[in-house]
């Protein structure tokens, strides 16, 4: 058999086997994002949680369904968290009345420190206290700040690790607040 013939055979076999392999691994197209498991990755429903705010009231993430949510994990000792707070506050003031919620999740600090921080930076968006770090573990938070952009159906659309500037925040907001 000549080289060209041998190669033609390889080509045909690759075409047939490759096509069959793709056809064999097709997926149903009617699976919606909300039917996926709740894991903290883009394209999946945001895992639900309940935490207390500094006033001692419970806040459920599922209670915010129907609104676009910017879920921001932070701590007062984290410089980049502090630096991006004015941008988050501005977004909350600008779009809060039209269905955008900025929800800060403080990592394991006492209420007094959190309140001082909020007052110092004049932050008015809602904040909850993750004092046992169970929500941070649920969301696999390994560095601060980390921000999840959750759409009105409760689906995570974007995850940003690290400090956001105004442009990046605006860009990511488009995915949940068109």
């Amino acid at each position, binding site marked *: 058999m000549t080289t060209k013939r041998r*190669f033609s055979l390889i080509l045909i076999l690759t075409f047939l086997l490759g096509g069959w*392999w*793709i056809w064999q691994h097709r997926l*149903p197209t009617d699976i919606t994002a909300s039917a996926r498991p709740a894991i903290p990755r883009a394209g999946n429903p945001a895992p639900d949680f309940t935490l207390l705010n500094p006033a001692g009231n419970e806040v459920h993430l599922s209670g915010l369904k129907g609104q676009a949510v910017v879920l921001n994990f932070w701590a007062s000792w984290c410089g980049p968290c502090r630096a991006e707070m004015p941008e988050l506050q501005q977004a909350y003031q600008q779009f809060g009345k039209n269905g955008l919620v900025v929800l800060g999740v403080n990592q394991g600090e006492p209420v007094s420190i959190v309140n001082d921080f909020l007052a110092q930076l004049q932050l008015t968006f809602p904040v909850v206290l993750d004092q046992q770090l169970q929500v941070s573990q649920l969301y696999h938070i390994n560095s601060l700040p980390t921000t999840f952009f959750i759409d009105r159906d409760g689906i995570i659309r974007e995850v*940003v690790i690290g*400090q956001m*500037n105004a*442009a*990046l925040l605006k860009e990511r907001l488009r995915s949940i607040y068109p």
Partner: protein
Amino acid sequence: MISTLHLGPVALPTYPLLALLGFYLGLWLAAQIAARRGINPDHLYNLGFYAAIAAAVVGRIGHILLFFPAYRSDPISILSPNLAAFQPVFAVAAVAIVILFYQRRYHLPVAELGDALAYGALLTLATLALADGLNGRHFGIASTQPWAIEQWSMARHPVQYYEMLGTLLLIALLWWRQQTLRPGQLGLWAAAGYAAVRLFVDAYRDQPALIGDGYRQSQVIAFIALMILLLVLYQSLAEPDTPNGITFEWQQEEDGSR
């Protein structure tokens, strides 16, 4: 998952760390191939340096152009270290222009340079697959196999590691056969081999982007790329004596025996 390395008080995120390591390893391997192909390996390191600078600067410029009002009100954020504030299309275009410009400026042979870059890219891709695995990115479908790994609260196919192993195997295979390949062949086989790896392993990836009647987008792209690359290789068979023609060891043996 090991998304952070804790070294005393320092916590290092593994994904960017491995991405940097992969970039360097890919460059190093490309330089090795370049040296065997008669190109001064320093050209590859210089090219990598210029390409990285161009990608960073032009990627950020792209972001500034798209969100100019936000940057105008806060100019210092132009220097934001967050790698998400980039436009990848601008960065890729910048890298392509730098490679083209550098190749023409120093009159580097296109086929040999392509071989070195494509082969080096394989090692970068293998390292990125490892980074994906450690960070739970692009995870696999549920599995009951004994080698399944726990990711996102479920035993899953370690598809990122399948990709890494497949790519490393391809690197080894091409390294073993490189002496039998003419200039241009190594790059083509590297690209075709990687497309074949993705065509196979992406069948085990969970939550893929779909096109048409439920087809996995990455598999379809890999399949089309693989067929095109094989056709290019097939075409080259017609002219085995041309400088860029494809001649296999077994073809040479066959020709010699005639």
